[in-house]
């Protein structure tokens, strides 16, 4: 059993703020950007790249969203949600692997 530390709690607070707090993009859009699921044009290309191939993002990836009238403050929020969402999945995957590795060793030597 792993205990939630201050670092994890601070990350959860960030995650909760950007997805559920006040914003210019709707909470539903932010949740989809965060989970990189259920996205449709003109946002799916840009936000998918932010999550999985960020070095390939170019100016052209922003163009369809701008042309469709998505405002800059919405793009700001949705790109952040996509980036934090992918990081959250990595964080969760690492913690799950650690929990599995120490399962059954609760009386072992690890602090």
């Amino acid at each position, binding site marked *: 059993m*792993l205990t939630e*530390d*201050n*670092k*994890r709690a*601070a*990350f959860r*607070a*960030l995650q909760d*703020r*950007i997805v559920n*707090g006040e*914003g210019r993009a709707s909470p539903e859009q932010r949740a989809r950007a965060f989970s990189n699921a259920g996205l449709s044009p003109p946002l799916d290309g*840009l936000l998918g*790249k*932010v*999550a999985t191939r*960020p*070095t390939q*993002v170019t*100016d052209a990836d*922003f163009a369809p969203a701008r042309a469709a009238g998505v405002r*800059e*403050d919405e*793009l*700001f*929020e949705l*790109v*952040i949600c*996509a*980036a*934090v969402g*992918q*990081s*959250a*999945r*990595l*964080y969760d*995957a*690492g*913690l799950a*692997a*650690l929990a*599995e*590795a*120490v399962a059954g060793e609760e009386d072992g030597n*690890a*602090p």
Partner: protein
Amino acid sequence: MRLEVLNRGYGPGAKLLFAVIRLVSRQPVPDAARLAFYRPDFYGSWAKEFTHEAMRGPSAWSVGDRELMAAYVSQANECAFCVGAHTATARQAYQDAPKVAAVLTDVDSAPVEDGLRATLRMLGKLTREGKVGAEDMRQVLSAGVSRQQVQDALAVCAAFNTTNRLADAFGFEVLSPEGFEAGAKYLLKRGYR
């Protein structure tokens, strides 16, 4: 940066702060700092709190170790801005440029402790492949790394997987070597808050 709001959307307080930073450092304000000051109630304040906790909060890892992890994760993500920034910060923290260069060239042969080496390998795999298994973690633990240290390293990994993506997506300008050195000096003196 690719969004005009990140280039021009700042109030008088942030503009004054940027002017002071330019005056004191004699370098441009890094885009990472500019991002943190745009609508800080949405992202910057919360991200600074988490990143400061991960990079400067209590941990058995030294500041140099955590800055090296940040550079290593950034290298795995091929994020030029963050590699430059955190390579410089790790070098200054350790006062050992060859050690940092050796890790980023070949972690297997670099002159670091086995626990740090195993942790860096695990963070690199998680970042590149998106997953690690229990066996990867057992290798880290068997190298003498505590559970809490693994958790602390995963927090660094999360912080820089976020920042790397934002640097690439928003188009952070890569600084000069002098700019990165000035930024590193600030991060070691003041942290991420």
